[in-house]
């Protein structure tokens, strides 16, 4: 029985790894299941639309694109497994992963197998390790933290500001940068703490904030915890303004926090929906009943980046593609993209937003 089992396992493994019979497979990877599944969903919708559009234009170098979707559930081990699967499928370009902790180990696999990738992960380590194939179409946590920290120091002068994080790679990195930037501007945080993500009871920390007389909370982490903190603060009679990072773009925040969500500000790249060049695409998304919020437009832009780089390089081979990406400037729905030597986007520019009645807009 064992023998047949082994044989079956071998055959099945082989079958799983047969390369898809596609003209040009490109891939996205991110949390399609699990706690952050809604972000994965945005990426998928954006990429599907982009590929449909590109194929309608006749594909890339005369070949049609097909989309492979990998689910890493934001788990580093699964991310490596997904990366290996994708390599086997012979993909020529990867948009992903989403969580920094998944992108870092997965990028090693893509680097070895000569696959260029464009990611939206914001942890500095993603591009700091000298991998040639990694491009980042989003800003970095240190830039993001700087913008948030400076904004807090100048707009909330004399207010008591606390800095909190959720102990994730993303959250802690961001919170550290915010605290650093604030302190540099002379606004030292009155409280610097961490909470455990995934819990429901934050009354202890809310009471602590109340005791310290905190007015503004700078938070590094995901939107679900912010919603809970806001609700519990309201119950405890504490009025809080929250400053968060790009994860606060998720509309789930508004559903969960209710009217208190109007107190949430966050930093994010300039809204691609406001980009006049992107207006037709935005219209197209809305016509398909997809609100192009969060990462939707980034996924679209990543595919555009690939299309234009391949056209420019007249090849989808790694060396040519990589050279084209590093050297060129690309017109995408999120604005003009060009990269520095590390692979970071040259003009990232973070802007401060605020939620208002279920929509977000630039903060005044």
């Amino acid at each position, binding site marked *: 029985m064992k023998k047949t089992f082994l044989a079956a396992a071998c055959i099945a493994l082989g079958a799983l790894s047969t390369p898809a019979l596609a003209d040009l497979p490109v891939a996205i990877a991110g949390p399609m*299941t*699990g*706690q952050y*599944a*809604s972000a994965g969903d945005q990426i998928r919708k954006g990429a599907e639309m982009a590929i449909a559009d590109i194929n309608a234009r006749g594909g890339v170098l005369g070949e049609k694109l097909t989309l492979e979707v990998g689910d890493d559930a934001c788990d580093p081990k699964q991310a490596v497994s997904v990366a290996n699967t994708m390599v086997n499928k012979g993909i020529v370009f990867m948009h992903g992963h989403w969580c920094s902790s998944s992108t870092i180990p997965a990028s090693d696999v893509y680097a070895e197998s000569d696959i260029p990738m464009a990611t939206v992960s914001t942890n500095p380590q993603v591009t700091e390790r000298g991998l040639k194939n990694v491009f980042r179409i989003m800003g970095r946590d240190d830039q993001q933290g700087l913008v948030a920290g400076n904004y807090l120091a100048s707009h909330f002068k004399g207010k008591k500001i606390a800095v909190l994080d959720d*102990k994730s790679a993303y959250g802690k990195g961001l919170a550290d940068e915010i605290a650093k930037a604030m302190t540099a501007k002379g606004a030292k945080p009155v409280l610097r*703490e*961490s*909470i*455990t993500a*995934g*819990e*429901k*009871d934050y*009354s*202890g*920390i809310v*009471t*602590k904030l*109340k*005791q310290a*007389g905190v007015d503004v909370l700078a938070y590094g982490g995901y939107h*679900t915890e912010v*919603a*809970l903190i806001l*609700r*519990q603060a309201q*119950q*405890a*009679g504490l009025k809080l303004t929250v400053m968060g990072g790009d994860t606060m773009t998720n509309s*789930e925040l508004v*559903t*969960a*926090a*209710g009217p208190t969500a109007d107190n949430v500000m966050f930093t994010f790249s300039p809204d691609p929906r406001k980009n006049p060049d992107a207006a037709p695409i935005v219209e197209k998304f809305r016509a398909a009943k997809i609100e192009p919020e969060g990462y939707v437009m980034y996924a679209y832009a990543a595919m555009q980046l690939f299309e234009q780089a391949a056209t420019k390089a007249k090849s989808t081979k790694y060396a040519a593609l990589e050279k084209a990406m590093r050297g060129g400037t690309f017109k995408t729905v999120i604005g003009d993209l060009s990269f520095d030597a590390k692979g970071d986007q040259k003009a990232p520019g973070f802007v401060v937003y605020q939620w208002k009645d279920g929509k977000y807009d630039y903060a005044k």
Partner: protein
Amino acid sequence: MAYALQQLINGLTLGSMYGLIAIGYTMVYGIIGMINFAHGDIFMVSAFIAVTAFTLLAAADVTSVPLALTFVLIVSIFFTSAYGWAVERIAYRPLRGSTRLAPLISAIGMSIFLQNAVQLTQGARVKPIPPVIQGGLEVWSTPEFTVQIGWSQLLIIAVTVVMMVGFTWLITQTPFGRQQRSCEQDRTMASLLGINVDRTISFTFMLGASLAAVAGVMVTVYYGVIDFYIGFLAGIKAFTAAVLGGIGSLPGAMLGGLLIGLIESFWSAYLWAEYKDVATFAILVLVLMLRPSGLLGRPEVEKV
């Protein structure tokens, strides 16, 4: 001082919730001697049922809070105990009489299954409901700090006390309680004396699940936001509470729950919030070193 009082209130509320879930653990452990790892997920299922029920009520324009609460409690207890029954029937009953570890693994599998089943059928997004009970009592007001106790916090503490008293009565005073205790002591002898062991065990699971349902409704009312992942952490904490108090003992579970709630809230109030779980587990280890069967547990006497 006011600050400490506020943290005490927070700790008691949290502790009551842990206690409610821990009693369910302890009852199941008492009767079949297994750790029901899926208990936390049954609690999670009940919270989802509560959210659906609250949303239905909102759609039907029911505004009376006591009426709504009663309805949600009944609905949630009914369906959740069905889940408790089914889990026992599917995953544990076939394993009765096998090694001690088999039901443990099957319970872990069940926990993974329930978590993913809920994620699939109800979605991965968080489920919020508008605040059900608002406002509270200002207990004490000093110039720099106002101590508040929310009505929902009072409700949780009151419900926990009622449940605690009710279940102690049920176990110590009623015929069912006698059957249940006899099954705990010796299942073979109990069945020889005409007690339907299968039915008693099933009923115990349903009671445990009902307690989880009450806790699920309370969590939904108090926090207002739930997701498919809440069962895991709550389950581990409640399990710790049950062991701390002495697994198998109802007052022990309650005591353990309260202690853990208080440790967590005072540790994060005065020390480093990020190490509060370390504190909880360290105290558990200390207690078990001094009293190997928990605070109120009876020491196991083994006859040779």
